[in-house]
């Protein structure tokens, strides 16, 4: 049994959460550059150039890429042969998020009592923690600062099995069409299919962790991703919503078994500031 201290988890989360907010992942920068080459609309190209320059400035000035430094979605793959010592894991993660907020001058964007009080928690906690138990003796941590502009435009549908793939595609395209300019296009889509209502939503977040140009290893699902991407880009929303060819930079779809009577579909929208960072202990 390997011993990992809760303090080491806190250190890693604090480091990753700041790193994610000050620099875009290399694959996202590459996707923005590819979009710049493909975009026909002058206003769309200007937006893409602005976003690439913004990424440079954020790193240079150590100013967050976006003022919405996100709700802290944290994924942990915990090896079965690891014992976390010195405190509970969820408290260690929250301590890391709070330290990142303080040290990185990030925004405290969380409110407690969303129905009535809506009182800012002051340190951007709690995180939303997804924990998976895996083989081995490592702790792999991935942070996904999730902005509300895109999150608010995400949708979930409990489709009928008879709706099938055409229904799924229509729902995804309609979700982006309704979202329009609000989720800061060009966007990414993370689509979760199957499981229960809650599992489909978690799958859609996990799909967002995939590298921008990486297709689903299943050729049929890869084809479905491409079909959704093409249909979404035909909407013409474009960078910034000012009109253009590139509305979406990538579609990642993940599926899981579901009930014979169900076809849950969660369409998660990620904004152009598609921030994430990973590390292992």
């Amino acid at each position, binding site marked *: 049994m390997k011993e990992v201290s809760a303090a080491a988890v806190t250190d890693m989360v604090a480091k990753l959460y700041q790193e994610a907010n000050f620099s875009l992942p290399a694959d996202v920068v590459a996707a923005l550059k590819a979009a710049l080459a493909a975009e026909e609309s002058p206003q769309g190209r200007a937006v893409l150039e602005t976003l690439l320059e*913004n990424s440079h400035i954020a790193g240079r000035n150590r*100013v*967050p890429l976006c*003022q919405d430094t996100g709700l802290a979605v944290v994924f942990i793959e915990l090896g079965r042969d690891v014992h976390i010592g010195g405190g509970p894991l969820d408290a260690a993660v929250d301590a890391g998020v709070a330290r990142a907020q303080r040290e990185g001058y990030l925004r405290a964007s969380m409110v407690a009592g969303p129905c009535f009080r809506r009182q800012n928690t002051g340190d951007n906690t709690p995180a939303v923690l997804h924990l998976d138990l895996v083989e081995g003796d490592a702790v792999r941590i991935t942070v996904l600062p999730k902005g509300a502009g895109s999150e608010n435009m995400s949708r979930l549908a409990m489709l009928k099995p008879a709706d099938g793939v055409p229904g799924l595609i229509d729902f995804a395209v309609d979700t982006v069409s309704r979202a329009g300019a*609000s*989720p800061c296009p060009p966007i990414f889509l993370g689509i979760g299919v199957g499981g229960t209502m809650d599992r489909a939503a978690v799958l859609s977040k996990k799909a967002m962790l995939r590298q921008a140009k990486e297709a689903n290893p299943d050729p049929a699902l890869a084809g479905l991703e491409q079909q959704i991407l093409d249909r979404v880009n035909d909407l*013409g929303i*474009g960078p910034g919503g000012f*009109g253009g060819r590139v509305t979406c930079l990538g579609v990642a779809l993940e599926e899981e078994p579901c009930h014979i009577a169900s076809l849950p579909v969660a369409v998660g929208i990620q*904004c152009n500031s598609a921030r994430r960072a990973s590390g292992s202990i």
Partner: protein
Amino acid sequence: MGVTLKPPLSEEDTRALSAGDQVLITGTIYTARDAAHSRLAALIERGEELPVELAGQIIYYVGPTPASPGRAVGSAGPTTSSRMDAYTAAILSRGVRALIGKGERSPEVAAAIRECGAVYLAAVGGAGALLAERVTAAEAVVYPELGPEAVYRFDVVKFPAIVIIDAHGGDLYRSGRERYRR
């Protein structure tokens, strides 16, 4: 490139703008988002004085990150405008000439903008670090207890935005999308 706007603006200034025009703003603008809008709209509804004079001014929908030492402001890009739709007609009734945010507005807001001869501008969402470089000073002037939701006075230099909804029925989100739809 771009039309220079120096607030306070007249109705003539904003009526001269068309959807798709690039603008560069230099001078003073005011920030407000959900909580500040809710409070200001309640005062307007009761016919009371506002704690800040908004006639001729530009309102920017933004909740910046805290400024790190040596900087005027933290990251400061636009937030989603539709959350302010319910309050916008009231805000425009006090002479606000331009609104900056991102994302579509309701038909009611578009109508109010046309009636007042005002304008709705978008800044690039996701460009908070770049836009922050155009803000030279920031001060919480109303509701400082709201933190990022306070009303700040921003001094800006060549702050870039694009006209989305103009006073003549133009809407870049609609026309841009129509042009590139397949």
